């Protein structure tokens, strides 16, 4: 595989006995098709597809977890994209990716090109915001909802910044 | 005076008794259903109202009567009210021709243990039970809503299809007994010494299966099953009107069981009706034992109804219709032809 996609290849490493391959995002669809069809490790099953948000680099890391029935092995493919970029959909390679990518879109806002039906799946259609991003403030969401629908001040303390409860920078809500 | 007593008072008393007993049995069936279901399902069923839940039907009746009477806004009020009544009444008036026993003497008068004896009794029963289907269609239509109407049409289609097979299945009995009168049919069974079920086993099975489909009971109860998309014709009904449909279903069940007993199992005859019984067992031959035998046999059939409902899954609608038209109807016709052949060749020689 290295030979074919050497320009896209970034690194391959093994951590705790699990194999990871990281590639660049440009030819991701062809790479995935190659992973599915090659004879050395035919990955005919996409176990999972998800994303991790790295706000410091303003990047998303899209992770594909592949499995090969015949060789009984798991492989992880990773690729990084900037927050505003689109990435090719894997739904053409494995139909499993359909809903998995919809969920990534729903939770992170990653846009997939050539996806058959890119709509929100878990949240209501008219939801604003992408919850699993690191800069999504759940407490702020709650305070705003209470203010909008109940017209009162919820009194919940929220803070701006990373959603970690250890952060001592509390800011009380103002009108 | 005699005329008045014979033709007005006695029939009125008989009607009163039959109606009263029938209503009681219908009420009891609601309890029996829950108790039998419970015992099959390893639990106890209603236990609180009265000893072992005996007064439960009373509680249910009171509850249904006191419920709020909801009338859908766009529904046609008169037909909405009339439909359950149209479903219920035929189920009850079928019992006008069913014989519960032979005759006995009271104060010098010969009283026959039946309300009346129509010489076209069988035809009467078949036609009256068809009217009940109208009650269902009207109920679905009057609700003025898409889904009850679809459910009602499905129910009606199912009932009509199985009516055809039902009619054919009892023709064998008709041929053997040579008469449409139900009293004659029972008397013929006494004459032959054999219940007709032994002469017409296939006819009986077909009749009972069609009967279950007629009354929309499991395994043919898809039109009224809760897990179906279309909730059935009685969606919009609540309270007392709903209870009327409910009672109509049970009354129909009892009617089908009573017909099965009359046509195939000897009506009010005891087992081995022509074998003389020694000594005190001769009591079992008394005319008033007739209704008792009848009741026992009907009870067994009703239990079978309940047993089937709680044991088997239900058929899908298209499979149901397929069975009715592709299996039961040809079998019924085959039964008819075979019976005709045997009757011609062996019984009516020449």
């Amino acid at each position, binding site marked *: 595989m290295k030979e074919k996609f050497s320009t896209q290849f970034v690194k391959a490493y093994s951590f*705790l006995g699990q194999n990871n391959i990281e590639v660049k995002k440009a030819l991701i669809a062809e790479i995935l098709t190659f992973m599915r069809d090659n004879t050395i490790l035919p990955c005919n099953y996409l176990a999972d597809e998800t994303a991790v948000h790295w706000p410091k680099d303003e990047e998303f890391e899209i992770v594909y977890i592949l499995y090969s029935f015949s060789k009984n092995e798991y492989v992880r493919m990773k690729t990084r994209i900037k927050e505003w970029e689109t990435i090719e959909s894997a739904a053409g390679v494995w139909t499993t990716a359909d809903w998995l990518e919809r969920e990534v879109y729903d939770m992170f806002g990653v846009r997939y090109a050539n996806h058959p039906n890119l709509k929100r799946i*878990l949240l209501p259609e008219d939801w604003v915001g992408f919850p699993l991003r690191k800069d999504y403030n759940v407490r702020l969401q709650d305070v705003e909802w209470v203010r909008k629908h109940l017209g009162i001040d919820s009194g919940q303390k929220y803070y701006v910044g990373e959603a970690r409860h250890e952060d001592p920078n509390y800011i009380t809500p103002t009108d | 005076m005699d005329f008045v007593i014979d033709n007005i008072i006695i029939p009125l008393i008989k009607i009163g008794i039959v109606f009263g007993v029938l209503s009681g049995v219908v009420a009891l069936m609601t309890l029996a259903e829950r108790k039998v279901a419970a015992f099959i*399902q*390893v*639990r106890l069923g209603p236990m609180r109202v009265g000893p072992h839940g005996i007064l439960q039907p009373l509680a249910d009746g009171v509850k249904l009567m006191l419920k709020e009477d909801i009338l859908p806004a766009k529904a046609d009020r008169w037909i909405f009210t009339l439909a359950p009544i149209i479903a219920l009444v035929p189920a009850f008036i079928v019992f006008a021709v069913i014989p519960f026993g032979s005759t006995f003497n009271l104060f010098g008068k010969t009283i026959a243990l039946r309300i009346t004896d129509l010489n076209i009794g069988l035809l009467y029963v078949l036609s009256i039970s068809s009217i009940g289907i109208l009650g269902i269609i009207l109920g679905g239509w009057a609700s003025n809503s898409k889904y009850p109407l679809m459910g009602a049409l*499905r129910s009606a289609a199912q009932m009509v299809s199985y009516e055809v097979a039902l009619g054919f299945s009892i023709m064998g009995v008709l041929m053997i007994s040579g008469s449409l009168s139900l009293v004659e049919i029972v008397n013929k069974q006494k004459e032959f010494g054999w219940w007709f079920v032994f002469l017409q086993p296939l006819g009986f099975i077909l009749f009972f299966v069609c009967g279950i489909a007629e009354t929309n009971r499991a395994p043919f109860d898809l039109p009224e099953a809760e897990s179906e998309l279309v909730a059935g014709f009685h969606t919009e009904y609540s309270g007392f009107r709903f209870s009327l449909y409910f009672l109509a279903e049970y009354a129909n069940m009892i009617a089908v069981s009573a017909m099965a007993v009359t046509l195939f199992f000897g009506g009010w005859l005891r087992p081995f009706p022509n074998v003389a019984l020694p000594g005190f067992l001769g009591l079992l031959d008394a005319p008033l034992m007739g209704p008792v035998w009848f009741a026992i046999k009907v009870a067994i059939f009703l239990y079978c109804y309940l047993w089937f409902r709680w044991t088997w*899954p239900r*058929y*899908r609608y*298209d499979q149901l219709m397929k069975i009715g038209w592709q299996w039961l109807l040809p079998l019924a016709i085959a039964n008819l032809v075979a019976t005709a052949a045997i009757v011609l060749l062996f019984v009516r020689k020449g």
Partner: protein
Amino acid sequence: MAQAETLFDASELTVSMGPQHPSTHGVLQVKLKLDGERVLDAECVIGYLHRGVEKLGEVQTYGQFVPTLDRMDYIAAVSNCLGYCETIEKLLGVTAPPRAQYIRLIMTELNRITSHLLWLGTHAIDLGAITTFLYCFREREEILKIFENYCGARLTTHMFRIGGTQYELYEGFQDQVRTFIQDFPKKVDEYETLLTENRIWLDRTKNVGIISAKDAIDLGLTGPSLRGSGVQWDLRKAKPYCVYSEFDFDIPVGEVGDTYDRYLVRMEEMRQSARIVSQAIDKIPDGPLMAKMSKIIKPPVGDIYHSIESPKGELGYYIVSDGSTMAYRARVRPPSFVNLQSLKKMVAGHMVADVVAVIGTLDIVLGEIDR
């Protein structure tokens, strides 16, 4: 029925089996496009039970996150627990002591039986066989009593801890489990007499919801649904975790991939689970219950993926750790979520009444799908 169609003059009707429905297991909405009685297309609308479990994984410590996971697949809560604990243990590089692993195995297999019993009860009741539901719950009651005696909870048990188990086995545990396991195969036979050869059951489930092996793998179907299509793949044998490699059991496989095959596969799985438990219950070794590790769990930086065979399919956990006490990304790969995608393919061309059967046979739990 033809009359009804002309009455409404609709060649295509869109009907929604709404979120509140007696036979969708949980809050699931299925939008069906119908042509008369035939289903042309089915679209699932999910998310009614979304609770943000993955976001919670980022604000709770690893130990705190375990009970949250119970609430995902609330029917097979023990499997959720097992998967997560094993994942974190792998990340930390510790192994639970043998006694803990045996206890984990027994509880997980009992939970598999529980989950399949519930599946059977609800599937049967959807198709009209009401009594089976009550028989299944009678057996399930016995197992839930065992769970309650062990950890105090029946449904959302928080049985295992990262590094082992916390609770010691109670007195009488082995006898109680043994009595149950001895009776259980007879009970499964009872269910089989009610349903397996029943003409009506066969008519309702044969050739309904067929999916080929190739389609199944492409759609990501796992668990008994995949095995019903003929693919012999079970994570307990393919990638043994816990102490499964020490036990002797078979993987039942179907042929055609229809509802009836999946039914047979799950019935047989119940028997095999009973077999595993009966082998394990006699061999529980003595020893400590928790591995030696620090109280505060701070895994090294990195990521890991580990999956187990839950009763519904492949339940996977992908944890990204940044070295602190809370996960950076806690991703759960829910089997029911991916299984539900295949509803569209299975249901096309069938009748409306079959949709209910297919939803039942996929064995979905909305808690898992929506998280």
